[in-house]
């Protein structure tokens, strides 16, 4: 189209955009604005005092470290699962493939209590692990397991389509030229799937930061040790301490937006690289 003045042929522009803006405004913008509004009623020094409280800082640390470790575990197993599900045909593949989205379909509270039962010191997995000296439930290990469960689908589902689309001729060429399988993986395959894997990693990490339902049962919620930031927001709310709850929430929100922003950067860079943008 040469000029920007092109008449809109398809009907319904005003109606559909109007409804979209109205609904988005009421459901997302106004509620989000109230968070900013509430925090502006807090002075800067109060805000700073609230978010640098040692207990709150500890909860940020727990949330970040556990989400990061869980996302790393998912990166390794997510790549492996995507590879196995795309490249090999074996009995039961369909079932494994269909199971991947289970963490999205299962209510988080149910995941929380069942993981707790599974990994408590009387549980089916928790007991043998405790016998060899690993305590899972009510420790940070438990939080990491819950977040690994929640983030599992992200990396698999991000990498799978890329692997499906990938032309294996480069891989074969590299093999014929005498490269080892490990070398082929790191120099031919990995660069191709890295943007998708990073996107999945970012989504899993972001989801982990905000996750609440699946974590609180298995975490034990001990201040300074296994208390995640979303739980602390909840605790402040139950004490009707809205100002501090808002302050903690605002910091978490900025962190999640930063993660989402990085994910979008990776995605748009990839698109430009492929010539779509």
């Amino acid at each position: 189209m040469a000029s920007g003045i092109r008449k809109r042929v398809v009907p319904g522009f005003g109606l559909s955009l109007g409804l979209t803006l109205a609904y988005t405004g009421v459901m997302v913008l106004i509620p989000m604005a109230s968070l900013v509004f509430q925090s502006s009623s807090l002075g800067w020094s109060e805000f700073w005092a609230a978010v640098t409280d040692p207990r709150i800082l500890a909860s940020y640390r727990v949330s970040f470290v556990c989400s990061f470790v869980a996302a790393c575990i998912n990166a390794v197993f997510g790549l492996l699962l995507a590879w196995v599900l795309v490249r090999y045909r074996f009995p039961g593949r369909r079932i494994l493939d269909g199971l991947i989205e289970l963490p999205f379909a299962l209510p988080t509270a149910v995941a929380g209590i069942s993981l707790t039962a599974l990994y408590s010191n009387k549980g089916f997995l928790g007991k043998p692990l405790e016998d060899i000296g690993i305590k899972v439930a009510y420790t940070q290990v438990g939080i990491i397991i819950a977040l690994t469960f929640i983030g599992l689908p992200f990396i698999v589902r991000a990498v799978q389509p890329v692997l499906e689309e990938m032309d294996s001729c480069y891989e074969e060429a590299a093999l014929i030229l005498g490269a080892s399988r490990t070398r082929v993986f790191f120099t031919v395959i990995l660069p191709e799937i890295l943007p998708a894997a990073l996107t999945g990693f970012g989504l899993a990490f972001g989801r982990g930061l905000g996750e609440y339902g699946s974590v609180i049962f298995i975490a034990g919620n001990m201040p300074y040790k296994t208390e995640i930031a979303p739980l602390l927001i909840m605790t402040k709310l139950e004490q009707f301490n809205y100002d501090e709850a808002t302050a903690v929430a605002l910091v978490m929100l900025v962190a999640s937006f930063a993660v989402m922003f990085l994910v979008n950067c990776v995605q748009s860079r990839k698109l430009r690289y492929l010539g779509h943008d």
Partner: protein
Amino acid sequence: MRRKPEGLWAWILILISAAFLVLMLIAPLAVVLTESLREGLKVFRAAISDFYAVRALYLTLEVTLVTVILNTLFGVVAAWALTRFNFRGKRLLITIIDIPFAVSPVIAGLIFILTFGRMSALNPWLQANDIKVVFAIPGIVLATVFVTFPFVAREIIPVLEARGTEEEEAAVLMGAGLFTIFWRVTFPHLRWALLYSVILCTARAMGEFGAVSVVSGRLRGKTLTLPLHVEILYDEYHFGPAFAVASLLVMAAVVILAARNLVEWLAKKERR
């Protein structure tokens, strides 16, 4: 390159993957079922036919239904606006629609407390008109709608984007109106993606816990959804009943998962 697994390495990788999924996904499912029956069938039956459990089940179904209807209508309308037309600020609007994905469920609950709760500017008006939002059903619906807000729009925008607008333009030239065009031209391409996204939206709405637990106020028999009911039973050390009620949600999740896979398979078959 689809090949039969050749060599030892392929089988080792398959075995590790299968073991990981069994440990991470199957084991938690199995535990819910065994724990729910541990205290006997009688406890199980009593737990799921308990008055408050049934009330919670109905509330969950109602909230899910309302949420899915609202967000599906929004998703279709938004996809129409965002893919059939070009306008300034389109990118920004897409980013705003995605915001709920980046927000922790607890924060999603918090923002509705701040908007409609005691310290909100709306509060005097709400009180004067005797409208209860926070710690009542409207709040639960709002929080659930927020959490699942982008689901449908996000899934169908790429489908419509990929199709272009030529078919709709042709239909306009032949004199079709807005609804005819949508129903006869656009919708047939949208069917599977829409169904798929509605299934995902249902799953999330049904199981939402964090956002709902902030705004619910936990009034037994009034504002308890099924996941909250499970939490309360569990916190009161009624483990058998808690897992019994949880097993209902597990069954729903398995049905949803099966439906998702079926839709995906049907869509793939049709494309071929």
